[in-house]
């Protein structure tokens, strides 16, 4: 662990940016059709519980990261195994987010550019930021948070004032009852994006005020969830369910449909700025968790030395995990959604919390 302190506000900002990161980009919860926004809100409630579990574990072991307390809870061998698999998972997620982003950029702006170059550019910036440490990431987050919200507010005003929104597209609400929504929640939104907050269990030990962690984290999830839900509702009401479910990047389609006062059109840069900021944070935080986790697990004195090699690994992973975008999506819906995410993002934290509860109760007794 590096010597660093972050404030509750910084944690809040990082959570918001992280959650918004790639979730605004890809169509999340589109399986719930026009009720996607409800699915996001319900998923957020599940996210609260999961974050509560992480926070509880943090309070049991406030000084150490999950990498260390997993070993305390499960024993040396199984703890290390689980910690290692989390590190790999973080890197895999970082690679996936990077791939999502690279594909998005290729489809809408850089058709001729190789994916490798686009991803390499972003990972370069990420590596630079991660070397500087968590405090710098947190401070950068504070700045970008303001910028992102400025852009969001401007974008919202533009969309509303161009008269694109048709609220009837959101009707009928809960067409097929709660069943469809809850299925999407269980398979999708509870783990992505909200369960992904597992990354912050690696960052909670840096908090300068322990008690503020829960409030800041919950509020961060709440703000991110509300925002995602609004974005999704706008996407649906602008495009309609039919286009939305077929669209790869719904927000981009929405932004591109803005036309105002003859010159405010093709505001792709707006979209690009906010997406790059979000993706940058998501990849950086995953990558930071992977790097600091590796350093702790293998007792490496200078984590900054790990950043370059691991950065290369993430970069190559992002290229090699799938041979095409459709394969990438298929993996995301199959392997990711059915096994990895429910297991590592939902079940394991709950399981760990159970063990921690039993162990600590024994101690007290």
């Amino acid at each position, binding site marked *: 662990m590096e010597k660093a302190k972050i404030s509750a*506000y910084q944690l809040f900002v990082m959570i918001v940016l992280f959650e918004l990161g790639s979730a605004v980009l890809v169509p999340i919860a589109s399986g719930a059709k026009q009720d996607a926004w409800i699915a996001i809100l319900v998923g957020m409630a599940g996210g609260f519980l999961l974050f509560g579990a992480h926070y509880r574990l943090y309070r049991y072991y406030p000084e150490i990261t999950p990498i260390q307390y997993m070993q305390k809870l499960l024993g040396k061998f199984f703890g290390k195994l689980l910690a290692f698999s989390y590190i790999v998972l973080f890197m895999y997620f970082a690679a996936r987010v990077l791939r999502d982003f690279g594909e998005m950029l290729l489809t809408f*702006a850089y058709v001729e550019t190789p994916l490798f170059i686009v991803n390499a550019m972003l990972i370069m910036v990420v590596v630079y930021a991660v070397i*500087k440490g968590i405090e710098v990431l947190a401070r950068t987050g504070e700045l970008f948070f303001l910028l992102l919200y400025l852009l969001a507010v401007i974008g919202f005003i533009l969309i509303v004032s161009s008269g694109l929104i048709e609220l009837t597209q959101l009707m009928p609400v809960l067409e097929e009852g709660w069943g469809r929504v809850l299925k999407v929640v269980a398979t999708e939104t509870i783990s992505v994006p909200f369960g992904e907050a597992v990354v912050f269990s690696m960052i909670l030990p840096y908090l300068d005020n322990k008690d503020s962690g829960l409030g800041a984290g919950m509020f961060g999830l709440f703000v991110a969830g509300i925002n995602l839900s609004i974005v999704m509702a706008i996407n649906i009401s602008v495009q309609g369910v039919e286009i939305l479910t077929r669209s790869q990047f719904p927000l981009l389609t929405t932004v591109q449909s803005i036309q105002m006062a003859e010159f405010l059109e093709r505001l792709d840069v707006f979209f*690009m700025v906010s997406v*790059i900021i979000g993706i*940058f944070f998501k990849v950086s935080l995953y990558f930071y968790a992977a790097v600091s986790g590796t350093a702790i697990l293998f007792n490496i004195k200078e984590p900054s030395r790990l950043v370059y090699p691991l950065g290369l690994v993430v970069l190559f992973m992002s290229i090699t995990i799938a041979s095409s975008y459709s394969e990438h999506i298929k993996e995301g819906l199959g392997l990711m959604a059915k096994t990895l995410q429910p297991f590592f993002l939902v079940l394991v934290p709950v399981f760990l919390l159970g063990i921690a509860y039993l162990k600590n109760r024994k101690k007290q007794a």
Partner: protein
Amino acid sequence: MPSFFKSKKRKARKRNNQHSQPPEFCQVIHPSLADQLDYIRNKTGSSTDIVIRKASFDEKLGIRTAIVYVEGISDKKTINDFLIESIIKNRELHEKHPKRDPFDILLDEVVALGDVAVHHQWDSIFQSLMAGDTVILIDGFSKALSASTRGGEQRSIEEPGSQVTVRGPRDGFTESIGTNIALIRRRIQNPDLWNEMMKIGTVTKTDVAIVYIKGIAKDEIVDEIRSRLKRIEIDSILESGYIEQLTEEHVLTTFPTYYHTERPDMVAGNLLEGRVAIIVNGTPFVLIAPALFIQFFQSVEDYYGRADIATALRFLRILIFFISIIAPASYIAGTTFHQEMIPTRLLIAIAAQRETVPFPAFVEALIMEVAFEILREAGVRMPRAVGSAISIVGALVIGQAAVQAGIVSPAMVIVVAITAIANFATPSFTVAISARLIRFAFMLAAATFGFYGIILGLVMLTVHLTSLRSFGVPYLAPIAPVIPSNIGDTLVRMPMWAQKKRPKLVASDRNETRVGDNQKPKPDESRGMKRTSEKNGGQT
């Protein structure tokens, strides 16, 4: 009892005088005047600006004295009026009181100057001599007197050339450290304004002063600055830039972590915010630390004028900074990668202009930017008399002929011109010059990746800026990290009555408040429609 000890000492001295030691060049001052003067001549290589004036103090006993000073850096009038004349006039004093120690008479009654010191070592004698003091040597004493006669020709206090304001005081720092400290002291008439002097530079022995307000400045920051200055081992300090380079925290950056200014009112304002000033003798540029990024977009005038206007100007300056960084890059990105983002008619106009241009946009922009940088550099270095030639050549050749020859497009000329003017408008030269450099990196990024490159560049720039610290204070404070009580003096400039606290990370926690409660001015209650008291008579 005390008198007994005194006389014993005197006896000891007399005894020493009798045994004359062979003259040797060591630290101890030899009592013989001739030897002393020889030593001085030897040490200075008989330089012609060292003036030695011999005079006899007591003709009967043959006590001779010598006055030594360096011409040009000492005040000749003072030396003549208060030293030479005084010594010659007071010759009889020792003849009247032959028992008294001539050295004491000299010290107590003859030297009519305020700042007098006694030296026992050659080192300190030469140090004060070279600083402009006058040294008085007396035959038979292995010590010397020095009187402060620093002076000589100096630039008078003028309006600073580098930070011009419409409203505000007109005085600027000079090359003399004494004058500079005085200019600050005149503004902050408070005993808590402390300054610590030290000499840095093994050869130049330059005076460097740390100035701060005790109780407002953070002690840790003052200690840190002091220890960093003490660490310096270098032969010379010729400008405050030497100090800056030797003590800054981050080497690999184009951004300054010290603020430097020629304006005493700016230094006073910063001292009151808890910052520390470093004044170096021989330069009008005073360093201020810790320096935050946002400071470089502030001007003293912001505080003298209205708050709302100052706020608008600060937004403008941030915009200017971005323009001077990314304007050419955006042109490159827009014309090469993202034509769809340019409105169609404008795109057609630009494309028509670019039709004759044989280069890609990046090369075009590079040619123009480099040409402009050359022009600017020439404008700075050229003698003033031929300066106007530059503008003619620049305007004609770059502006018109290049376009007519089809080397660059008119749109590119506009972009370069806007960038250049934006760069000149940045209040701080150091930030402007680093923006100039970064601009080329952004142009390269735009040429290879369009807006994606520019945005990634901006993200990287932000990460870089947040990673900087100036004496432990994060460079982007109070925006990142957010410090709510200090946000009133960043991009926005709140009115004076609303800025209650000093910068939290900079100033000491013990003395945070600077404005009292209820300082918001209100209209006179006896006027207007709302009448609360009927005392003053008059009815509505």
